């Protein structure tokens, strides 16, 4: 739906930059993968105990998503329709292995704390969803931009969640103490419970804002 609308907009205005800006607005806000499309919940809940982990996870997914979108879009006319999902998974798995090895070599601490969730990027629904719904139908450059935009949206929502969880749960921000002795850290926020609660409230807030926006439009 979105892509068709975008294409007509592009034809009308002829604005390449405008479409790109629209893609970024979609990825980060209107179609935010975690908070609006509700994809990729596992890493969102599991890796947001600290801001550092969340940023690492978000950027790894962005890298994988951009590369896989680009390659899948380049190969979109060669891949037979029946085995497309399997082909996508193999392409994604290749990039994930590369990211996994790179992280282990250059940032071993981050790699150790993210642990099994790096290889699990393979089964992250966001990547397959974008491959299926965007990269398989659009030209390479557009798909790569879509990967960056969606990845950044994912990174943003992960960071938002981890800021809430780290500040409230351990009283720190990126490892620095920010509680200043004013409040006692609530350990529940860095436990699984805190993950579910924070995400629930964030999505509720997002739905509230979205419904207000659509009401305004209706009124106009």
């Amino acid at each position, binding site marked *: 739906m979105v892509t068709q609308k975008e294409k007509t907009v592009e034809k009308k205005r002829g604005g390449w930059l405008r479409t790109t800006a629209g893609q970024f607005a979609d990825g980060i806000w209107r179609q935010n993968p975690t908070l609006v499309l509700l994809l990729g*919940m596992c890493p969102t809940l599991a890796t947001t105990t600290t801001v550092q982990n969340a940023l690492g996870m978000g950027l790894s997914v962005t890298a994988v998503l951009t590369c896989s979108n680009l390659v899948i879009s380049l190969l979109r006319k060669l891949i037979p329709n029946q085995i497309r999902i399997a082909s996508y998974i193999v392409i994604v798995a290749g990039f994930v292995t590369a990211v996994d090895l790179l992280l282990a070599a250059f940032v071993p601490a981050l790699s150790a704390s993210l642990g099994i969730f790096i290889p*699990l990027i*393979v089964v992250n629904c966001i990547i397959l969803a974008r491959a299926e719904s965007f990269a398989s139908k659009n030209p390479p450059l557009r798909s790569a931009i879509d990967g960056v935009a969606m990845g950044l949206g994912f990174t943003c929502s992960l960071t938002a969640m981890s800021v809430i969880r780290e500040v409230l749960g351990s009283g720190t921000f990126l490892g620095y103490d920010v509680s200043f002795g004013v409040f006692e850290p609530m350990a529940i926020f860095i436990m*699984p419970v*805190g993950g579910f609660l924070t995400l629930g409230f964030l999505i509720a807030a997002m*739905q509230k804002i979205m419904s207000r926006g659509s009401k305004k439009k209706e009124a106009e």
Partner: protein
Amino acid sequence: MLIRLLQISLGAILVENFILVKFMGICPFLGVSKKMDTAFGMSMAVIFVMTLASIFTWMVDVWLLRPLELEYMQTVAFILVIAALVQLVEMFLQKSVPSLYSALGIYLPLITTNCAVLGVALLNAEASYTFIEATVSGFMGGVGFTLALLLFASVRERLQFADYPKCFEGFPIALVSAALLALAFMGFSGLEVF
């Protein structure tokens, strides 16, 4: 040996529950928990595939990848094994047990992208379990998944009659109830069997 297997089972079902403690398989957990019978179908499919996946990935890992020193290819190899396995199971059931196939039908293809299945394969390899330990860990992981999913589905069925703020409709209220379930499962942390 038996005690070790009991340890693995209790760990997989309660202490380290795949959904509520390890955060794997959240998508089906939130996606198919609206009704009890779909939740049950999904759970059975997951138990089945997780057990088979543990068995086959163990074979691939121990007999193929380790002798060839290709451990870094685990992710690619495992996801291929799982995708092929799901496809095979689907074809086999369609031909020989059509009643089970129609019951599990739409859930089977979804399982390829269930993190719990790839997760259990990777965790087994990481812990270098023996064949029996890996099989038990896969099966019990599936049982743990079932327990959490069925508990959650029964909670969600009652949520339909609850009165909550409108912006919490859908996922948010489900996540908040999942949080309460996770809180209950926190009680098991630190449980050990000797």
